């Protein structure tokens, strides 16, 4: 059975992270699993967790009033879930529900934030990995918004 540290180390998000930072990060980590249908977090809850998905699939949903929930993004193996833990006011924006059995490393948001504030180089490591992912998500969302499959296929 792999150690927690080696699991964190092998996740694409923390690839090539220096050992001393790896140790700090692993200090906030624990192994979690969600059955299909479980909610991982819900909209407006306090955002306090950061997930490195190891296996499975999670749906991010929006629930417009008087309508069925709409899935706007899915996140799977090798990807991350949640970034609002890093940005005040630390609120979840969507519902996150496991679509199938999902295993993840859960990182305590407050714990990781505190360590980043104490050691800015660690902070830089985390933010510089987070930013490109958020950027890609934003571009993808913008593309989804333009409804490219609309009338022109």
């Amino acid at each position: 059975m792999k150690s927690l540290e080696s699991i964190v180390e092998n996740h694409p998000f923390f690839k090539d992270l220096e050992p001393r930072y790896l140790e700090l990060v692993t200090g906030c980590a624990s192994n979690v699993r969600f059955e299909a249908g479980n909610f991982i977090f819900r909209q407006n809850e306090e955002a306090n967790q950061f997930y490195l998905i190891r296996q499975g699939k999670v749906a991010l949903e929006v629930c417009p009033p008087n309508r069925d929930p709409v899935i706007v993004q899915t996140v799977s193996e090798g990807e991350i879930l949640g970034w609002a833990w890093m940005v005040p006011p630390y609120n979840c924006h969507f519902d996150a529900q496991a679509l199938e059995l999902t295993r993840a490393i859960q990182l305590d948001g407050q714990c990781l934030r505190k360590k980043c504030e104490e050691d800015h180089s660690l902070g830089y490591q985390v933010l510089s990995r987070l930013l490109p992912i958020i950027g890609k998500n934003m571009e993808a969302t913008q593309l989804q918004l333009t409804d490219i499959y609309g009338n022109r296929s």
Partner: protein
Amino acid sequence: MGKLSIIDKENLNKLIAELNQQGYKTIGPTIRGEAIVYDRISSIEDLPEGWTDEQGPGHYRIKKRNDKALFGFNVSPHSWKQFLHPPEKKLWTAEKNGSSFKIIPEELKNPKFAFIGVRSCELHAIAIQDKVFIQGPHIDRVYQINRKDLFTVSVNCGQAGGTCFCVSMKTGPKVNSNFDLALTEVLEKDNHYFVVETGSDRAQSIIENIDKRSAQDQELKAAEQILDNTAQNMGRFLDTEGIKETLFENLEHSRWEEVATRCLSCANCTMACPTCFCSTVEDVTDITGDHAERWQKWDSCFTMDFTYIHGGHVRHSTKSQYRQWMTHKLASWIDQFDSSGCVGCGRCITWCPVGIDLTEEVAAIRKPDETKTDNT
């Protein structure tokens, strides 16, 4: 160089008659209203004797000359393409039969045209349209049959036109190839004659039937002099050096925005141009819905729907339309058909209501784009 001889007006008339005798439909320049157009002619009486055309950007007038030249003008508003590549043609008819139908192609008829008075630039334009319609992977049957027996009695220009620039485009003024007969009209004090050059075997046999005599040296010199004068007096110049690369590398030049403020997207240039070939198809039915026809009609890249695909027009601004027209004509054409699409006839300049001159536009695009220079 083909065989050279001299004929007079009377025998030019006989030539036209001879062509008609042999079943040709003779088309030539004639006055209609305020213009010299190409239409059915039967004798030299129909030719615009003593008339010339005064052409400038957005300007066309016919004016009386002080001589009796038969071909003393330059180019008509429309070109010969209206005969070879008709503005409208029915392609086929379809007849419904329950849930099935059958298609009846339109019968092809050979009109056996003889064009009288074709200019060198116009011969080049015909050769350019030949490449599009009958020398590619597919053949346009209507163009093919219209073109098949075409007999050309071409004319060397006795003067440079107000808007033309064949010298720049290497398409004139002298008729050099693809002709049956080439005439140079010479008007001296008491002498009005034509130097005739034969360019084909069948032309040779046609003129066997009219009176001619061999050309004397001074007559040939007179003809040469006329052509030299014409070549020297071109009013416009288009620099074709590296034009394809220049245009493709400047697709975002600010000049395109500028010309778009003047261009009306009226499509006159494409209608008048002897090489523009774009068309559209129209499917029509009668009121019972059992009888359908497919027609092909001239179209223009300046029309609203030219680039429509479900939900949008790819080129919806005048800027993109004008850019398409000019880059197609002068640049893309070279990749597509191994020659420029422009023969320098000047029609697009004459018939543009706001007088846009593509030689000017090319010169402007060759200049560096001032709006894009760095501000340091």
